[in-house]
């Protein structure tokens, strides 16, 4: 398959939005259970963006962000990445374990990997349930660096297919708006897996 994802029709975008919705919904539920608090969620935004514009989503190519990356294996090969700005990352850890003046120390990093694991895991398990495909998720790998550098990872994979990238934006809201968490999921299937994924959802390109 060598379809440019810009050519995705409305039905495909709707299906992917729904997948994003269900996946993120499960992730929000998992998060709520973990912190024993209600977590609200906005309807995810599914965007198809031009590659060079992607870092602007996170405040520019040089902005320091946190990326938590997982490989996918099984019927679908590829990866999933959860990216959030550093303030959202600290807010997320604070939801679970409130601390004064938290920084990116060992505790924060390890907590983020674990939270990322739960969020991405529930995302992938709902995708797996929807598609009836067996999808395994790897251990997390975390990086805190420039947005451009972190986002080059999904951008390159999408670059194999075209000049656009598919992004699912999620916002988890706690009662206190200043503490809300804005995160972006990038579902990054290998080329061959994209078609398989969409076919399993009853969509043909």
């Amino acid at each position, binding site marked *: 398959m*060598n379809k*440019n994802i810009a050519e995705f029709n409305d039905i495909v975008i709707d299906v992917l939005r729904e997948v994003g919705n269900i996946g993120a919904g499960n992730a929000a539920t998992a998060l709520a259970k973990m912190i024993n608090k209600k977590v609200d969620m906005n309807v995810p935004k599914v965007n198809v963006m031009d*590659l*060079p514009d*992607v*870092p602007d989503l996170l405040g*520019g*190519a*040089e902005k*320091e962000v946190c*990326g938590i*990356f997982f*490989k996918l294996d099984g019927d679908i090969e590829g*990866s999933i990445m959860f990216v959030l700005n550093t303030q959202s990352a600290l807010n997320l850890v604070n939801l679970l374990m409130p601390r004064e003046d938290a920084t990116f120390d060992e505790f924060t990093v390890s907590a983020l990997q674990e939270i990322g694991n739960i969020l991405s895991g529930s995302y992938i398990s709902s995708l797996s349930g929807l598609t009836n495909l067996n999808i395994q998720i*790897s251990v997390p*790998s*975390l*990086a*805190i*660096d*420039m*947005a*451009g*550098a*972190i*986002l*080059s*990872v999904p*951008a*390159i*994979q999408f*670059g*194999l*297919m*075209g*000049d656009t990238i598919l992004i699912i934006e999620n916002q988890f809201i706690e009662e206190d708006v200043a503490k809300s968490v804005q995160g972006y999921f990038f579902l990054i299937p*290998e080329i061959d897996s994209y078609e398989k994924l969409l076919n399993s959802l009853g969509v043909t390109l």
Partner: protein
Amino acid sequence: MSTMIKVGMADLKVTSSPNVLSTLGLGSCIGICLYDPVTKVSGLAHIMLPSSKTIKNNSNIAKFADTGIDELLVKMEGLGANKRRLVGKIAGGAQMFAFSSGNDTMRIGERNAEAVREILRENRIPIQADETGGNYGRTIEFYADSGRLLIKTIGHGTKEV
């Protein structure tokens, strides 16, 4: 007055002294900087993938090392550079996320760097500085007045080569 010219992802630009070419947040991509010290013509390509040959959807020539370098040479010669005098500096090609069982997708930074070195060798362009690899992002500024390359990172210092 020098102007700072931004080069985006899968993009390339050429200029001459005293202007500066810059690309922000290089990860696994490579910034290829070429310079003619006599005419002070400079070029910067921000490539994402090693080769256009294995990919059907390859209309964006600045995305690939092979077609990107070819186009950079044409544009620089258009500004008066002589290919025989060109020298190169490269940066980027990091592996942002580490896994013990690295498959080809994960090693893309390294494969990009290898492809760039090979193509520059074929074009007989010596590489004066090779700041590739590692697991961190880089912002680069390439000064056409001197050919110096400034590399900025988060937590890995600043370097001039």
